[in-house]
């Protein structure tokens, strides 16, 4: 098994290593033992209890699978549904891939360090499963592949590892929803994700989080984009969680490679979000953009962003806007790091409240004060994402629409 032993060894050494930032979790308090769930086919998926169905739909999952080219659903530690409908697109549970395919070793733990912290270590030491999604060279999808990591067992620590590969000239869209069953209260989700966007490929990855109030979430993801490639990374989390910390990183290693991050975060009372985005621009012509919209409803949000320009002729922009609606803290930490002459980097950060003038303007068009505020908040949360298929845009709008009822 290749260097698996070495990986395990490294992981063991890091199993108690706290993360660089964010609240530290005591992982011994969670159960990690595998939970059995049987495989369900397409028809059974359609006949799930309506409450569970609702949770899946909220996380962006289309259970009819009609407008999806593939589906991966993992419940707790078990893969319960996995299929694909388009030639040139592969969706494989990672455990199966590790057993059956040699090529996976070119990707597995190649971007994320297994010993980065105790969360990456846990994902190696007690790997439950995860998905490998690959678009073969030149394959293009119109509809997205959907993946769902669903948690049902109370107090579970779910360890997953995902790998997404967009081969040369391909176009791949992935929507992934993470959710918990309605009765679930507490648990932890540790998810490693590695993204490979090859020459002239396009990958959009849209993640919608829909957790329970006492969940702790520690995603660990790194992407690599080659020449002429485009990586769009969208993240939406508007439901309460106890703590969430992540700092997804992208390396633009080819000329004219592009990465854009868009995130929409709502922090409810009792929640602590610490999230950021870091993009290394390593080749001329590469471009990066990080856009974050945060609303605090009484929670704590640390919104970080870090752009590193290592060569001339790169362009990068960071935009972080926060609205404090009902108390709480928004802490914006934008960082720009230019290493040479000829970089073009900028940022725009603002934390504030809704302008009275805007409320009055809308009221003079007939809206009540509450409706005016809701309209402004909806506008604040709606970001135009260039390159995102309209269908995914609609999905994001729907998720925002669903959740902003709770925001008010």
């Amino acid at each position, binding site marked *: 098994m290749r260097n698996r032993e070495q990986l395990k060894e490294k992981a063991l050494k890091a199993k108690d290593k706290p993360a660089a930032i964010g609240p530290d979790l005591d992982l011994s308090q969670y159960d990690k033992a595998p939970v059995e769930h049987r495989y369900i086919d397409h028809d059974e998926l359609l006949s799930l209890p309506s409450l569970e169905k609702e949770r899946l739909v909220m996380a962006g999952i289309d259970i009819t699978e009609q407008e999806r080219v593939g589906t991966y659903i993992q419940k707790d530690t078990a893969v319960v549904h996995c299929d694909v409908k388009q030639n040139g697109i592969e969706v494989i549970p990672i455990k199966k891939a590790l057993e059956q395919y040699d090529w996976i070793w070119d990707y597995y733990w190649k971007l994320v360090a297994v010993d980065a912290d105790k969360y990456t270590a846990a994902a190696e030491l007690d790997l439950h499963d995860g998905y490998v999604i690959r678009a073969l060279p030149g394959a293009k999808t119109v509809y997205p592949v959907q993946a769902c990591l669903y948690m049902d067992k109370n107090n579970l620590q779910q360890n997953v590892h995902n790998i997404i590969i967009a081969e040369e000239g391909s176009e791949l869209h992935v929507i992934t929803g993470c959710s918990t069953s309605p009765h679930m209260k507490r648990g932890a989700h540790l998810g490693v994700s590695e993204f490979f966007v090859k020459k002239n490929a396009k990958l959009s990855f849209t993640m919608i989080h829909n957790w329970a109030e006492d969940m702790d979430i520690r995603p660990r993801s790194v992407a690599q984009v080659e020449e002429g490639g485009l990586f769009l990374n969208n993240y939406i989390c508007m439901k309460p969680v106890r703590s969430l910390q992540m700092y997804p990183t992208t390396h633009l290693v080819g000329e004219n490679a592009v990465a854009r991050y868009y995130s929409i975060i709502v922090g409810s009372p009792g929640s602590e979000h610490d999230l950021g985005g870091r993009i290394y621009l390593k080749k001329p012509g590469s471009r990066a953009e990080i856009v974050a919209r945060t609303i605090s409803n009484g929670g704590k949000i640390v919104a970080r962003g870090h752009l590193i320009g290592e060569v001339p002729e790169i362009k990068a922009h960071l935009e972080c806007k926060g609205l404090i609606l009902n108390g709480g803290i928004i802490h914006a930490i934008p960082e720009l790091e230019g290493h040479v002459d000829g970089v073009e980097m900028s940022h725009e950060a603002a934390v504030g409240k809704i302008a009275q003038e805007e409320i009055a*303007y809308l*009221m*003079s068009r*007939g809206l009540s004060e509450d409706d005016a505020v809701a309209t*402004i908040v*909806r*506008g604040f*949360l709606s*970001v135009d994402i260039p390159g995102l298929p309209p269908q995914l845009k609609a999905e994001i709008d729907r998720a925002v629409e669903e959740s902003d009822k709770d925001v008010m």
Partner: protein
Amino acid sequence: MLVIEDLQVELAGKQILKHIDLEIKPGETHILFGPNGSGKTSLLMTIMGYPQYKVTAGKITFKGVDITHMPINERAQLGIGMAYQRPPTIHGLKTRQMVKICAGNGDDVDPEALARQVDFVDFLDRDVNSGFSGGEIKRSELLQLLAQNPDLMLFDEPESGVDLENIALVGNTIAKLLQKECSPTDLKSMLQLKRERTKMGLIITHTGHILEYLTADKGQVLYNGVLSCADNPRDILRCISEMGYEECVRCAIANN
């Protein structure tokens, strides 16, 4: 009918409107003149109901209802609308959605058809007022009033910043909104149309260009928070352009 009686208004503790009396009957359009800082915009904002303009005395009545302390949105619902000079940008809210909001969010509004009237179709999918030029803001405001269709319309310098090509469009649209168009038909004579006019307008202007597109019933001069003169708007305009607002000071003193 709009009736303002002995209105006194403060902004941030400073008195900015003094003993204002004004009456606009159904079908009438008034022009409001006055130098910069005389309180013209404040009067419009007070009528619209902006709470920072604090009414310390007097009364505003519209359609027989005392609206002196009514919230902005209730005034809008009662039929008051305003075309702003410098409206705020609302990020993420498309002009198309704004038009629907103005029309009360009903299904029967056709934003394209309305936008065509002010040559604004290309802007429907842009955020309201975001990066709009001076002239585009005027057309956006008129589009919103077309959708809102209020009975009393307050225009804050509708022709400022508008280029020569668009001034006719703006002027004619305001005339249309205020039912000032000359369009007698076989069924109705001009006199009948005039009698049936119900829309009321109050227009702030510095240049008077707007008077080339519609006839106003009355002109008012606001000077230092005091309405100093009420006369034929063209006469006032001539007087101001020949003698400046200095003359209005004398009139104001004479009035008091």
